[in-house]
């Protein structure tokens, strides 16, 4: 924790982006683990995915792998879209069977 570390963060160096990505990830993780609504948990997952994207593109810019990082960002976005579609379909399916979107109430393995 030297002085230059904090200077790097404030000026938007690599450490700043990585610290921001880390804080976004922790907020998303807290949303998934503490909130009860499945839709809130879903939004937390999206936030964690975004934190990973920020870290990926920051490393790509500062370590001269920009085009490669953006290509992988494209693939990550496509997988995130798939995950959103299937996850929301699962939530809607659960609601049809149990009339709830509360993850605490979905604690049986059988319908």
């Amino acid at each position: 924790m030297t002085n230059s570390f904090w200077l790097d963060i404030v000026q938007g160096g690599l450490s700043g982006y990585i610290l921001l990505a880390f804080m976004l990830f922790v907020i998303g993780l807290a949303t998934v683990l503490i909130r009860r609504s499945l839709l809130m948990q879903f939004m937390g997952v999206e936030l964690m995915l975004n934190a990973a994207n920020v870290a990926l593109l920051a490393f790509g810019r500062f370590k001269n792998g920009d085009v490669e990082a953006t290509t992988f960002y494209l693939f990550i976005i496509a997988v995130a879209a798939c995950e959103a579609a299937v996850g929301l379909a699962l939530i809607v399916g659960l609601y049809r069977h149990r009339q709830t979107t509360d993850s605490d109430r979905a604690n049986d393995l059988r319908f």
Partner: protein
Amino acid sequence: MFLIFALITLIGALAMFRQRNLIAAGLCLVLSFIGVSGLFLLLSNPVAAALQIIVYSGAIVVLVLFVIMLLNAHEEEPMEKRRLIQRWSGAGVVAILGAGAFWVVASSKALHPTNVNPTINPTTLGQLGTHLFRQHVVAFEAIGLLLLASMVAAVALVKRDL
């Protein structure tokens, strides 16, 4: 500029975490995603910024808001019973993982020899397309198949009598 966009992102995320109303939480998520796309602009990556706005704050959040309105789940349902152990162990796991990740990130050797002024040539769509179709054509086709499969899966999960 970096601090402004970082603050927008973090405030949006924290507001989403604290919000009771699910629709408002989705709108806070949009704010956070817009901050992230500003960060991508600062990383001189306009393609990623545009994709962030179009796909995340455009498509995915709208999909989530649609489902919230469809299920009429504007508020979190009242607790069935108080599960104090789960609640506090969840908070504890977040704290432990957060502290461990911070320690790993801050002590990482990859961060310290940074150059504050990276090369200033923005990533263009042309570069990206050339790279995508020269090096990653197979992955590109696989992603197309994956999108088709997930679409079929989503329809099959929700449809009642298939």
